[in-house]
């Protein structure tokens, strides 16, 4: 899932300064899960902005809504009536969501309330970690399901560097050495011979930015 984090309130206040009627739009998918931009977070941000406006003696009317996914044109198009009532849309979706709304409603400024961070997963309650770099050339079959692009500080593809130290990384001693983890996982699966093969340098053009995938549903 995409993991994002809300911008500091000061940054958001600066973005919407001078506007009197805004729509804060949440997204019901990734950012709901990582507690950044779901219905609850929309309500909390609205409340904070109303309090801040009252404190500064400014007038601010806030409409709130949350749709299932901001990155789908049909779902965003359904917001036409609400968007027409406001001066600006403050999106609590990821970057993809912000841009979809901006494309559907080009006459209305659309501002991001979140910083989109990475593709990742929950490690514990309230903790999300990056696990995928979306490199476009997935290597995980060869590394026991552990990604060295993300988890190895040097992004190595052919085993640990000389600095691996009791399972820890020499670049960041707090981090586990990814290749130690990979070795242990492959050992557990009886697949250590995978590590004996040499893998040539990656094709970093596997995904030309902006990426595009065209497919037919089966």
């Amino acid at each position, binding site marked *: 899932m995409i993991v994002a984090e809300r911008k500091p*309130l000061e940054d958001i206040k600066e973005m919407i300064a001078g506007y009197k009627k805004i729509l804060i739009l949440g997204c019901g998918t990734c950012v709901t899960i990582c507690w950044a931009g779901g219905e609850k977070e929309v*309500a*909390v941000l609205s*409340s*904070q902005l109303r309090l*801040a406006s009252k*404190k500064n003696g400014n007038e601010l009317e806030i409409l709130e809504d949350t749709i299932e996914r901001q990155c789908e044109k049909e779902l965003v198009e359904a917001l036409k009536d609400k968007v027409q009532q406001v001066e600006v849309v403050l999106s609590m979706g990821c970057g993809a969501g912000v841009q979809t709304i901006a494309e559907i409603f080009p006459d209305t400024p659309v501002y991001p309330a979140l910083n989109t961070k990475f593709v990742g997963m929950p490690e514990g309650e309230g903790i999300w970690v990056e696990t995928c770099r979306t490199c476009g050339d997935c290597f995980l079959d060869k590394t026991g399901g552990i990604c060295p692009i993300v988890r190895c500080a040097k992004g190595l593809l052919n085993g640990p560097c000389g600095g691996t130290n009791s399972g820890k990384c020499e670049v960041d001693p707090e981090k586990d050495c990814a290749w130690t983890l990979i070795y242990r996982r492959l050992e557990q699966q009886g697949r250590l011979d995978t590590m004996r093969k040499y893998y040539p340098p990656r094709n970093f053009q596997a995904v030309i930015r902006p990426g595009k995938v065209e497919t037919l549903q089966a």
Partner: protein
Amino acid sequence: MKAKGAFSPDIIAFCCAQSAYQAADTAGSMRIPYPENIRVIRVPCAGRVDVLHILRAFEKGADGVLVLGCHEEACRHLSGNVRAKNRVQKLNTLLQEVGIDGERVEMFTLAPNQGFRFARIANEINERIKELGPSPVK
């Protein structure tokens, strides 16, 4: 008797039905004085109180908010009091962002028979909010 023009804070007290609400009742039955401007709202558990309830209390003009629940490990719903404590901590950050002093909100724990403690907490928070003055967003 209130002096003319004296600030009487609007304080909302979310009281857990299993502990604080009963303690407030005990205080009442025993005629233990506590400020009349504390408005008690009964909730089934302190864990029912959401950050939104507290934020909206400030939007509607509250000067301070109390969240009162059961003592550690005494929560009938197991961890409602712990959740409430974490939420009040999180709320501190949200309030600071808006320029509202975090001292205006606090969580306390107590037992149902602690009428005196309820009154003491109510008096303490009342004095504290009087010192702080009316909410800056009133």
